[in-house]
């Protein structure tokens, strides 16, 4: 088993307040890892450390070591733009740009200068849309606005947009929380397909979802990592009493 991302002793502070306490957690390549826990437990904060999205927040400070392919992402071994090329992200609320479907997907490849040729770009866009399971639905209206799609389609467009940059890891921050059950099940199937090619780390509020899609699960509580391990084990016989209480719905 190969690690896609390793983290050691990660601490995160918002101003004086500590949001993450000394977490060390590794993510296996081509597996789906779910981060679960009650609201405010720090799971999203931790996820956003992995592609340095916390940089945007002025008062946020990250300590510890997070490495991808043995490169420390918070040291200057790698530019933040290169990092995000390798580690894509899908957000809670679908956030397509107010551009055409085509331009939404082509945005990343253009930024990173993948190709200048129209036909090659068409190929990249089509491949990404196919992988995100959206191509058949939109192939005749690639010039329509991305914002004109339904919520579930928008979220798959955002996944296609992330895939188009050819990342190694895809971070998903509660990707289904704004979607209806049908759109959710489509995205969940998609996640299972995508792990063939990508390492996926998903934050979710829904324990059923974590149980359905993930191979590994990590349980967070109050900024601490309480327990991690195989999903089946965490959901059937967890070692920690708190984990047991949470997955049986006693709090959270």
């Amino acid at each position, binding site marked *: 088993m190969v690690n896609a991302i390793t983290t050691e002793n990660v601490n995160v502070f918002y101003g004086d307040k500590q949001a993450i306490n000394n977490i060390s957690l590794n993510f296996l390549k081509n597996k789906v890892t779910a981060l679960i826990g009650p609201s405010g437990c720090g799971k999203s904060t931790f996820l956003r450390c992995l*592609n340095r*999205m916390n940089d*945007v927040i002025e008062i946020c400070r990250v300590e510890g070591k997070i490495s991808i392919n043995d490169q420390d992402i918070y040291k200057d071994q790698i530019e933040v*733009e*290169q*990092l*995000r*090329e390798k580690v*894509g*992200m899908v*957000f809670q*609320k679908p*956030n*397509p*740009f*107010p*551009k055409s479907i085509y331009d939404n997907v082509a*945005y*990343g490849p253009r*930024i*990173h200068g993948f190709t200048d040729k129209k036909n090659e770009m068409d190929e990249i866009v089509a491949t990404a849309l196919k992988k995100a399971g959206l191509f058949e639905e939109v192939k005749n209206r690639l010039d329509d606005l991305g*914002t004109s799609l339904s919520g579930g389609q928008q979220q798959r467009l*955002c996944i296609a*947009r*992330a895939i188009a*940059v050819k990342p190694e890891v895809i971070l998903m921050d509660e990707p289904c929380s704004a979607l209806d059950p049908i759109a959710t099940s489509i995205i969940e199937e998609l996640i299972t397909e995508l792990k063939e090619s990508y390492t996926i780390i998903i934050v979710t509020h829904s324990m059923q979802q974590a149980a359905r899609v993930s191979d590994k699960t990590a349980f967070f509580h109050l900024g601490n990592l309480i327990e991690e391990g195989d999903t089946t084990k965490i959901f059937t016989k967890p070692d920690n009493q708190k984990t047991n209480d949470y997955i049986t719905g006693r709090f959270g």
Partner: protein
Amino acid sequence: MLYPVLFLLLLSVVGFYLNKNKSVYLSKNQKLASLPAYYGYLAFLYIFVPAIIIWLGLLIGKSFILQNYLILTLGDSLSIMNSDEINLFMSKVKNLSLGISFGNETDLEKFAAEKIISFDKIFSLLTYLVLTLSSILAFLIARKKVIPNFKSQRTVEKIVNRFIQICSLIAILITLGIFLSLVFETLNFFSYVNPLHFLFGLNWSPNKAFVIDSAETIDKDILRDAFGIIPLLGGTLLIAFLAMIVAIPLGLMSAIYLAEYAPKKIRDFSKPVIEILAGIPTVVYGFFAALVVAPKIVMLGKSMGFEVSSESALAAGLVMGVMIIPFVSSLSDDVINAVPQSLRDGSYALGATKSETIIKVILPSALPGIIGSFLLAISRAIGETMIVVMAASLQANLTINPLEPATTITTQIVTALTGDTEFDNPKTLVAFALGLTLFFITLFLNYFALKIVKKYREIYD
């Protein structure tokens, strides 16, 4: 003069408490349809509203009553005067009654002044009496309404509602009145000058119309070439264009800096400072343009071998551009800020840098709003008066060379209405036609600007 109003307010407040107390007393035994305070408000409104209308009526009618009173008491001495003489007599007598004397009054006038003083006393006494009576009557009516199943809250809401309606109606009527007075005077102007000659004429020399001052009949051929608006429109657009060349880049860049790059401290400090630019009185910009900028441009032009007029369109345009920077920067800053953070995050997460995100995501998303801010700024520039009156020329000159003098519609309106004005002469009346044209241009621009801004808002809401 305002004492009757204070008196009325006092009566109304007394009515409020009397009614309120009665309903509080009633509510101890049974449930009332409304809260006690509403019975109080009812009394207040019943007393105040009709009485204030009566008072306004008396105020307006006073001089009419006074005049008739004087005619009755003085009798024959006034009946030999014509209406102009009566007006003169009245204003002289009124001044005298206020103690303003020029020492040349006749006995008749002095007698009339004394009559006015005594009339004033009686009239104000009568006013108070009428107001008190109407208040008592109104209070008695309101008192009758303090019964358990009378919904005074509804009535109060209705009265307040009507009051607000009347306020907005007044605002609309005033706007309409201004517009109609413009239209009628413009039609009057068009009886001298063919509208087509006005709208498409290439010559502007309204002084030609002086020629007809003494003439009995108006020679339309002279007027034909005197009132062409095109040179003014050209000058206006030229100066507005120069202003936009200054305001668009500076305003937009500072908006981008403030919205995206500036630390919070700098933003909190600079945004109000830039907005101060919009608060500087335009007359200050005017003399800044005329006394500082224009001579500098002339000097600079000379040193490079250009012929520059001391009243060049360039000086007025540059300074006007500075004035409208805040319109562009403040509105653009707002629309850039309104672009949701999630779009920025989406772009950053794909590995875009900040500048790539701004150019490829934020500005395109905010573009309609930014264009709206440009249009509002242009309409402001076109309607701006003081700067061009002071810094631009009076010479109508159809040119696109910014170094030459140019005049604007607003400048010519000011010129037409300053000095000796006669409202039977097209030279003066043209101001209304120009005003109406300007009104339509800015209305059109504002309409489109607001429409674009509104459409943009709908995308995210």
